[in-house]
């Protein structure tokens, strides 16, 4: 990457970040809903923490923290990718192509906004739930690792959703993937531990990548700052992000060729 392309990527990154933060109506729901579900879950399932198979936690909220983070980051990433599709729909993407802008900068600049928002929303979820019993056993180092993990999850999901945006060029199609994410989330261990599930549900949750993203962060929250917990929290989303970026880049190249 040349100095110029880094500058262009940073400029596009700044644009996409400001875009997200300047339109609170777009992103606030992705923060309010997960927080609401956390408090709802804490009151609904508070007594379930004594069930066999449930990990040792100080409160349901401590267990739920990881699910809340992933839920918020998933929904926020869809908004970021929908903005890329909107750029394609309203012609801004074509204007970028007509200018001597770095091609990968278009994609990475857009994803930078999602990554920053992912890190920001993770921090908000942690500090909003901390006073109500969502303790982080791993302490401040764990919180930093969780924020990095949130940013990486955002990068991974943002890149996957950007592939949809680049392939279809339709913000409606990107928003249409929302129910799919919702289904994946509910068939994962985001709200209840896999150990308490049985049969086909336990199998699906075991294969579901969302379960592994959630459990990585949860390990930091419940087990403390250990090498294995940190590796799970950071390496799993990093691996998914690398694969997703390759897919997104290939979709970008296809769109460039078709243009």
């Amino acid at each position, binding site marked *: 990457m040349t100095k110029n392309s880094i500058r262009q990527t940073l400029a596009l990154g700044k644009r996409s970040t400001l875009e997200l933060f300047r339109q609170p109506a777009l992103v606030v729901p992705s923060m309010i809903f997960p927080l*609401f579900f956390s*408090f*709802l879950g*804490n*009151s*609904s*399932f*508070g*007594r*379930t923490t004594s*069930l*066999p*198979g*449930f990990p040792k936690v100080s409160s349901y909220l401590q267990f739920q923290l990881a699910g809340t983070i992933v839920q918020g980051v998933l929904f926020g990433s869809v908004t970021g990718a929908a903005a890329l599709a909107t750029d394609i729909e309203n012609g801004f993407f074509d204007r970028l192509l007509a200018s001597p802008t770095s091609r990968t900068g278009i994609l990475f600049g857009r994803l930078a906004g999602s990554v920053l928002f992912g890190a920001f929303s993770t921090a908000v979820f942690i500090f909003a739930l901390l006073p109500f019993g969502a303790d982080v056993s791993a302490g401040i180092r764990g919180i930093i690792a969780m924020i990095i993990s949130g940013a990486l999850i955002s990068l991974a999901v943002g890149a996957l959703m950007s592939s949809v945006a680049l392939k279809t060029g339709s913000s409606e199609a990107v928003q249409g993937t929302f*129910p799919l994410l919702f*289904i994946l989330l*509910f*068939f994962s261990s985001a*709200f*209840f531990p896999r150990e*308490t*599930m*049985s*049969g*086909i*549900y336990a199998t*699906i*949750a075991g294969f579901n990548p969302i379960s592994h993203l959630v459990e990585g962060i949860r390990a930091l929250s419940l087990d403390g700052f250990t090498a294995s917990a940190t590796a799970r929290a950071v390496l799993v989303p990093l691996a998914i992000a690398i694969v997703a970026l390759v897919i997104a880049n290939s979709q970008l190249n296809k769109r460039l060729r078709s243009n």
Partner: protein
Amino acid sequence: MDTATQISTRAIIDEQDLHITTMRSAGQLIKRSLINTRRLPSAFIPTLAMPIFNMVSFSGTFFALTKLPGFPTDRSVNWFMPLGLAMGAAFSGVGLGFSLIRDLENGFYDRLRMSPTSRISLIVGPVLATWIRVTLVAIFVFIVGGLLGARPTAGVLSYVCSLVAALGISTIGAGWGLGLAFRFQDMRGAAIMQMSIFLTMFMSTAQVPLDVMTGWLHTVARVNPVTNIFRLSRSGWVNESSSGYMSWSNVYGGLIAIAVLSVLSLLFAVRSLQKIDK
């Protein structure tokens, strides 16, 4: 015939005409709604898929809840099937508001208002069409629920109570959705419709019984009338030994909640329609 008799006869005829016109117009609107369902299945399928998804995902993910001491059933699908049905019914109801917003935006509604159609039929017709759709959804949910292991504990009454609750929730949702659509006349109303229904439903016994809840939710759910509707809906799906099992005391609260909320929400819709006319 003297003048007074003529006026009185005319009034009776007018009233009969009005009644016939209302029913005929409502019938046409029901037909239109059902034709739309057949022609645009993409709009109906989510209404059908949502309760199934709710039922399947909740009963699988929260299966362990049934192991809590005092949980009213040992089958999680028995507990979550009425929730799925209620969610489907609620969103079928508020879905009317979405259709109305589309009709208001594309001018169809102005044409209806210009025609000599009874105003009441503009509300009665769509609500009755929703009842038909909700009944179809309920049949589908009962079949899938049965395949997943849901077993009624009070025979046919189990299905009847769940269906009555679903029809009630859809009527409340419809009145609320239509009222908001008449007031806002654009998609701003849609967000309020979804959010308010979602919050009202979940801040009740939607997920767990009152005995299992703790903290603020217990306080809110205890006074939320939707809790009574869920008690009605689930009365034939919980164990016979449970305190929520089918009995008049577990049913009447739900029926009253449905009647009162339906009247209030439909009045809200009528008043909002009158505001447009003014």
